[in-house]
């Protein structure tokens, strides 16, 4: 334990953990917000330092090529969200939607959430990862219900029930993996460690792996918001505080998908098991198409983008299911870009909802007129999320679509159809929200645009130029994913 404290990985876990404890005790929400930002920044620096120290493998914790960028991404978005949260929360207190006491809880939970997500990412143990995801779920449930309106409670309850069931299924899958591993590896922690499992997976009982993967896919898929186990996601996004929506879409979904990826690698390493791809392709495509249709009838702006998250998780899942270097590369890029973009969109949407005093799409009109910076920021975000260049999602979608069509032409039909349908809905709403004659009340917002535009700048740069090391990383990992 002492050794693991000195581990370079430890700070990314300990900083948020300690911060959560401290924040529980800080009465002033302004100070809390500042501590929140500072702690997130520290965690970000700690995460970045991992690049310097490089991969390391412990019995419980692990930094390798696959998770290092996710850790960095996690803490980066955690940091920017904390910045955004500070300006967002102030408005919520002013309008009496939250009390300072609740904010204390909120900030603590925020850091706890970051801690658990970091833990899920660095865990080298399938059990530990499961615990982390479970804890992350519980903290977000708390946060989703924080407004304690009828809708928020309903959303949180739904999230709790469905999330718990999902997590139960994932646990069963985890147990099955252990059962499969034990005859090969022997009892003990080794039979649950990624680093060991992956090297020996070819000797596991393939049918047990199949069964386990079904549970894991449905279980973690629930967290990732894949259809048909997505139901908690839209309401949880819509009814919770917007910074939490940003973190949910930007991070938690990624963490869950990351878990699925790990298990996919495991199952794929066994030649006799079912190709996990088929299942992932099916779920990915159904998520994409379903969410695309669902976008049309949305009346709440945050729910709209929540469905868009389902759509994009579907695309990434599909890409990983398809496999191959190009598709995997596209999938990884897609996850990263989606995280950045979607959280940026939620930053914008949060301020929009505050500016217009409503989340109802029908009451938000002509934003580029009344709030030019916010409006154009949102336009940029939606353009990005719709997969249009010069932004990063275009590159990933380009890779995924073109390689799909070259390899499995028939799969491209639902893929392209779903993308088009989703594009239709997003652009339709964007046109109404951002353009046309402004309507309804609108107050000026004192927003911090830095997080929003920082994200968009990153996405823009990534759409044009990917740095060499990042590419090397993606390529390496894409190769690993098989």
């Amino acid at each position, binding site marked *: 334990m002492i050794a693991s404290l000195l581990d370079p990985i430890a700070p990314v876990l300990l900083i948020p953990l300690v911060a959560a404890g401290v924040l529980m005790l800080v009465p002033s929400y302004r100070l809390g917000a500042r501590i929140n930002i500072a702690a997130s920044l520290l965690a970000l620096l700690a995460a970045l330092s991992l690049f310097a120290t490089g991969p390391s493998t412990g019995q419980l914790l692990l930094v390798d090529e696959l998770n290092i960028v996710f850790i960095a991404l996690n803490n980066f978005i955690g940091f920017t969200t904390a910045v955004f949260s500070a300006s967002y929360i102030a408005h919520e207190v002013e309008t009496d939607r939250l009390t300072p006491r609740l904010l204390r809880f909120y900030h603590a939970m925020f850091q706890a959430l970051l801690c658990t997500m970091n833990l899920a990412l660095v865990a080298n143990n399938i059990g530990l990862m499961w615990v982390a995801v479970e804890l992350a779920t519980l903290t977000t449930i708390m946060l989703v219900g924080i407004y304690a309106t009828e809708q928020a409670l309903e959303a949180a309850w739904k999230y709790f029930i469905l999330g718990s*069931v999902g997590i139960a299924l994932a646990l069963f899958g985890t147990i099955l993996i252990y059962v499969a591993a034990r005859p090969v590896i022997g009892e003990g922690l080794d039979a649950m460690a990624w680093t060991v499992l992956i090297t020996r997976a070819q000797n596991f009982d393939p049918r047990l792996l199949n*069964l386990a993967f079904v549970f894991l896919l449905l279980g973690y898929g629930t967290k990732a918001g894949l259809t048909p*186990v997505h*139901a*908690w996601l839209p309401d949880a996004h819509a009814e919770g505080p917007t910074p939490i929506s940003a973190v949910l879409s930007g991070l938690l979904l990624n963490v869950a998908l990351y878990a699925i990826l790990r298990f996919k690698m495991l199952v794929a390493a066994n030649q006799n098991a079912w190709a996990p791809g088929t299942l992932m392709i099916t779920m990915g495509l159904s998520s994409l198409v379903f969410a695309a249709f669902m976008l049309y*009838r949305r009346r709440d702006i945050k729910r709209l983008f929540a469905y868009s998250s389902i759509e994009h998780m579907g695309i990434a899942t599909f890409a990983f299911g398809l496999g191959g270097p190009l598709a995997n590369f596209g999938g990884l890029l897609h996850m990263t870009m989606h995280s950045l973009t979607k959280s940026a969109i939620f930053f914008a949407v949060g301020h929009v909802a505050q500016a217009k005093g409503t989340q109802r799409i029908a009451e938000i009109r002509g934003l580029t007129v009344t709030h030019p910076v916010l409006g154009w920021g949102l336009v940029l975000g939606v353009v990005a999320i719709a997969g249009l260049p*010069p932004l990063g999602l275009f590159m990933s979608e380009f890779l995924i679509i073109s390689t799909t*069509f070259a390899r499995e*032409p028939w799969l491209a039909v639902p893929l392209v159809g779903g993308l088009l349908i989703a594009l239709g809905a997003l652009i339709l709403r964007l046109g109404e929200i951002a353009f046309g004659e402004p309507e309804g009340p609108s107050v000026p917002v004192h927003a911090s645009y830095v997080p929003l535009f920082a994200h968009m700048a990153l996405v823009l740069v990534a759409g*044009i130029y990917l740095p060499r090391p990042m590419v090397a990383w993606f390529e390496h990992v894409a190769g690993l994913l098989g």
Partner: protein
Amino acid sequence: MRRAGRTSPSARSLALVRVAMPALFLAGVAGFLVLGILGLALARHAGGRPVVYGASAALSAILCLVAAYDLIAAVGPSHELVLPLGLPWIGAHFRIDALSAAFLVVVNLGAGAASLFGLGDGRHEEAPERVLPFYPLFLAGMNLVVLAADAFTFLFAWELMSLASWALVLAHHRAAGNVRAGYVYLMMAGFGTLMLVLAFGLLAGHAGTYEFGMMRVSAPGALVAGAVLGLALLGAGSKAGLVPLHVWLPLAHPAAPSHVSALMSGVMTKVAVYGFVRIVFDLLGPPDWWWSMVVLALGGITAVLGVLYALMQHDLKRLLAYHTVENIGIIFAGLGLALAFKANAMPAAAALALTGALFHVLNHMLFKSLLFFGSGAVLSATGERDMERLGGLIGAMPLTAFAFLAGSLAISALPPLNGFVSEWLIFQAILLSPALPQWGLKLMVPAIGAMLALSAALAAACFVKAFGVTFLGRGRSGAAGRAREADRFSLAAMLALVGLCVLCGILPGFVIDALAPVAQPLVGGHMPAQAGIQWLSIVPVEESRSSYNGLLVFLFIAVAAWLSAVAVHRWASRAVRRGPAWDCGFPDASPATEYTAGSFAQPIRRVFGTLVFRARESVDMPAPGDMRPARFEVQLRDLIWELVYVPISDAVGAIATRLNFVQFLTIQRYLALVFVSLVGLLVALAVAP
């Protein structure tokens, strides 16, 4: 012509040019991007307009000249410039060959003219902050598409172009219908891009070789090639405006500021044509003959339907947008012919058809930009696009009227202007079709010829209407009466284009020669060199077959007109008396009795409308003594919209509504969903072998 085989200093400098060329253009693109940022910074500043448009005009002019030099000096394909951008393991490839150079001329010529027009007309812009940042971006995007030499960069630029123009379409987003126009536009653009992504995906194959150079050498199978053709038609066609993918054009083009409309109609659709030519003629390898059937059929239908739609319009800019559809049809008909000849190893004929099509690309850019400028000047002067409220503008705006008239003549394919030359070349190619071995083509091509002729005649009819109703006669509303002549920059842009229209019309040989290096690599042949032919005639194949001399025809007409005028004035009466119009003796007719756009189109509507538009006329004539005004109503239906787009939109809407219940299930039901999917998968596992 370049002489090979010896390393003369000029050859060495040529090699240097080949290296420098892409970098030069990329620098230009970078310049546009800088201008975009400048536009953003200076958006609300009074100096923003002159700076952005002035610099854009200068930059475009330079790029245009460089591209023209590249083409005329036959520099040959440039070296491929690879930047470490875009797809990481491939990079961004840029290359300029003759085809790119030709389209760079078109793009930057149009861009220069539009910038010049914007320099003047932009002062009427009420929302410059929504135009200035995106305008240079749009220019950059169009240039980049033509420069790109790998699939990712191509599509990136393609969408950049769409996106920038989408933002420009939404510049006047408060006007009714413009948000919808932007929506339809971006949807069609997204559709087209996805289709092109698929096409490139097929061309790149499993390994993902997205460089054009690699695609060029790999030969796809017949099925794949056919699919690529179809996808390219859908992708490039939706951008170019092929029927039935044209629906966005008449919505989006009028919505944008006029000089942007000109760019979108005149230039951007040409970039789409470039995309089609690049994919189908260059990357795809040898064509199958049946491809040409598809392209020809689409081209012919597009030409006729485009002009018929145009005839039914009374919004001036929308009318022009539909004419773009028509001209795209003509261009695609030419391309289809070129494909047919290429598939049958008839390079001379293929070169003729391709040259005709490419010449028409240039011509259409010239006169369509000109016409949009004219309509823009009218819009700025009167605030009206509705022809039914215009009229008699020739008095207040004589130079604009003259320019619009020249554009109208050109687009109506009337000699001696440029539109006629390119259509004449395409007709000459059609006349070579009997040599094609396939019966399908033999029988089809004459029909396409008839359709092109029909569309040309209808276009003339339509522009008699457009020019006549807008500029001639008497003003139909107060707005028409208050009009003033356009400013000098706008006029300079228009008159420069008039000059180019005339030049291309009377000296087509130079253009044809310049296009020779374009055709050579694409179809394996080129038209005979025209420079040496006496009297600057043009000869498509051989002189005994056919020839045309625009210069002489122009001179003959000029001389004949001059002679008759001199003779009449010398020997006959010169007296002129002004008086009220006679009008068969009806006195003092009000402008309301004038023929309107709607009534002018009525005979043609009677002929074609019942079939194409399901036109229904209803007359409500009150009985004698009844003081009610009589009413005459025409109902037109857009069958393509109703049969293609409405069902799709309805289906999506219906499915969305049906599916929407999933949002409102109880937690039990959601759990049941989880449960059912779990049990389903488990059962699958249980029964699986």
